[in-house]
């Protein structure tokens, strides 16, 4: 029998912890009044939704026009398993797909590589070649749905496989809608699924910008991500500043490669975290739109208004969820999803309650989706744009967020840009310090995590979790080996040879060469091996 032990870290339950700060440690006043936002100029700082600087939202009618896209990230086991989950999610009212790949795919290894042992199908779906990608989208018409693919170092390869599936389905690339994450900078900073060093990685990314703007015009060729930066322990401000500055770095590299800013900038998209501190999060999204507008029109002198509009996806904060009393996570996710909607997100993933234990069960995944549907259809919140706009507190936080962000920009400019800052270790150190401070604040009891350091329950019964069948690896490996036997290996070798030559030349767009390799059923591991041979691999500086 579970026993409530609410002794926790506080002396008595009514005791309040001082000073009051946001979850990121920013001081909060007892009251905000008109005096706190005296400097605010409506037209300059806010403006109506759909008008620059877009602080209040990017569309004049916001969710009255169209609700956000409910996009649940999923992937596990073999392509067949995830294809079944995709059909289930689409049947249950989900609008768009979002693919989670397993770690070997993200790291450029085939399922039979020695480094892949124990990882096949665990954190996502195993994709080794076009054959797996065909299975993943079986029965799903690619001109009817939009697909987000969370892949970074090998993004160009997995996108090529998707484009090849579209060819097989007879779908014109111009009709394809979706996103590849393709954001390598935050990998070096936070999530660490990098393969190649920063400079060749940036070249591959610029190639996808160029290729996309010419051939796949509705595709978002990057999702510049703060999500992982926050998960790795940053504050809300650091998430905002590093993400937007990553955006600046991509734009600079593309312009330096000879691209016109207005050709690719409208296809840049962003991805933010939604953590627990509601007002701080809403301020973050509003400040993001305003700052990006200023960056694109100021620094980069864009002419197309669409180049200066920040569109973003949001995911609720996995790192905020607890293994203790896991049903409490449903409430956390609801608050975080509310922040994303109040902040005007374009799409949203709500995490499952069992995420700290394993990949979600079908029941947990459905509850997460239902949370969004309740917000959309029962809460009344999507009825009006930026409903918190004008709140003294929110507007003050939004202004402060902008100020703090511009201070970080100055530091990053002085370091010579983000690639140089990463090589210097600056953002990595900032995150390590912030995550350590947060952990200490919890252990001191300065921050309460319900069920973890207070309101603790002893003897909780375990909940059911999804277990990935260990036979997945053997079946995936046998499928892969069979493919290597039946494909035209002469064709594969020739395509890989051309790829290597193009990589060495360093002046041609790599996309056509990668596409030819995937069409020939070269595996992801084989393609990455060719690129590793030319580009080298990245090693993180010693800790």
């Amino acid at each position, binding site marked *: 029998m579970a026993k409530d032990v609410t002794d926790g870290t506080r002396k008595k339950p009514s005791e309040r912890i001082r000073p009051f700060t946001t979850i990121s440690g920013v001081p909060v006043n007892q009251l905000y009044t008109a005096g706190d936002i005296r400097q605010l100029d409506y037209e300059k700082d806010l403006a109506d939704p759909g008008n620059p600087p877009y602080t209040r939202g990017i569309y004049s009618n916001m969710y009255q026009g169209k609700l956000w896209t409910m996009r649940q990230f999923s992937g596990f086991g073999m392509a067949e398993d995830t294809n079944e989950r995709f059909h289930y999610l689409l049947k249950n009212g989900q609008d768009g797909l979002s693919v989670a790949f397993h770690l070997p795919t993200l790291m450029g290894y085939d399922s039979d590589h020695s480094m892949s042992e124990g990882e096949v199908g665990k954190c996502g779906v195993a994709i080794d070649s076009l054959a797996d990608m065909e299975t993943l989208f079986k029965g799903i018409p690619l001109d009817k749905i939009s697909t987000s693919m969370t892949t970074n170092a090998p993004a160009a390869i997995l996108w090529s496989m998707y484009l090849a599936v579209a060819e097989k389905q007879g779908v014109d690339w111009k009709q394809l809608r979706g996103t590849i994450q393709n954001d390598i900078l935050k990998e070096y900073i936070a999530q660490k699924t990098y393969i190649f060093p920063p400079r060749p990685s940036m070249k591959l990314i610029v190639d996808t910008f160029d290729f996309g703007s010419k051939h796949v015009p509705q595709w978002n060729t990057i999702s510049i991500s703060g999500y992982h930066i926050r998960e790795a322990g940053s504050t809300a401000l650091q998430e905002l500043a590093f993400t937007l500055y990553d955006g600046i770095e991509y734009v600079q590299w593309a312009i330096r490669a000879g691209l016109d800013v207005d050709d690719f900038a409208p296809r840049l998209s962003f991805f933010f975290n939604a953590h627990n501190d509601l007002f701080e999060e809403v301020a973050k999204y509003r400040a993001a739109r305003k700052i990006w507008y200023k960056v694109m029109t100021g620094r980069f002198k864009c002419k197309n208004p669409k180049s200066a509009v920040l569109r973003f996806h949001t995911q609720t904060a996995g790192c905020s969820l607890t293994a203790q009393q896991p049903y409490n996570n449903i409430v956390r996710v609801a608050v975080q999803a509310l922040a994303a909607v109040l902040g005007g997100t374009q799409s949203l993933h709500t995490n499952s309650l069992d995420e700290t234990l394993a990949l979600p069960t079908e029941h947990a995944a459905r509850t997460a989706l239902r949370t969004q549907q309740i917000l959309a259809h029962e809460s009344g919140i999507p009825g009006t744009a930026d409903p918190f706009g004008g709140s003294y507190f929110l507007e003050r936080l939004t202004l402060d967020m902008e100020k703090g962000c511009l201070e970080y920009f100055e530091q990053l400019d002085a370091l010579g840009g983000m690639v140089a800052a990463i090589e210097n270790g600056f953002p990595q150190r900032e995150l390590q310090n912030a995550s350590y401070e947060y952990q200490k604040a919890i252990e001191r009891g300065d921050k309460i995590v319900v069920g973890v350091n207070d309101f603790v329950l002893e003897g909780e019964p375990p909940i059911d979790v999804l277990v990935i069948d260990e036979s997945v690896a053997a079946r995936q490996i046998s499928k892969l080996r069979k493919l290597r036997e039946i494909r035209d290996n002469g064709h594969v070798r020739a395509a890989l040879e051309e790829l290597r030559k193009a990589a060495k030349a360093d002046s041609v767009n790599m996309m056509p060469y990668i596409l030819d390799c995937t069409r020939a059923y070269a595996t992801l591991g084989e393609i990455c091996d060719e690129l590793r041979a030319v580009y080298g691999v990245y*090693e993180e500086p010693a800790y």
Partner: protein
Amino acid sequence: MNDKIRVLVAKPGLDGHDRGAKVIARAFRDAGFEVIYTGLRQTPEQVVHAALQEDVDVVGLSVLSGAHMTLCPRIMELMKKESLDDVLVVAGGIIPDQDISKLKELGVSEIFQPGASTEDIIAYIRANVRKK
């Protein structure tokens, strides 16, 4: 013999989630331990080799990818082979309840699940190190 407790903090497998490993490494240092961090993507052989070379008292394994039931048994087997029986092994990460007893049977002394405090982990190590 040096009195300081020597700990190897290791990230075996492909998992790149190193927030926990880095927080715990720093907490160990603040507690006066000597800490060696392997860096990311170590094979079981590399982890055990580092434990041997560095002559550590404790190995702390961090795995969040679900590969712990492949990686931990391999590491324990290699440690036995190298006669590192006196080294205390602890693990943390996304490790569900049902795997804990199996890992303990293999010789992993303790598993710290999400929400564990660095103070508790440090206290556990102090109480159990060099007891074998």
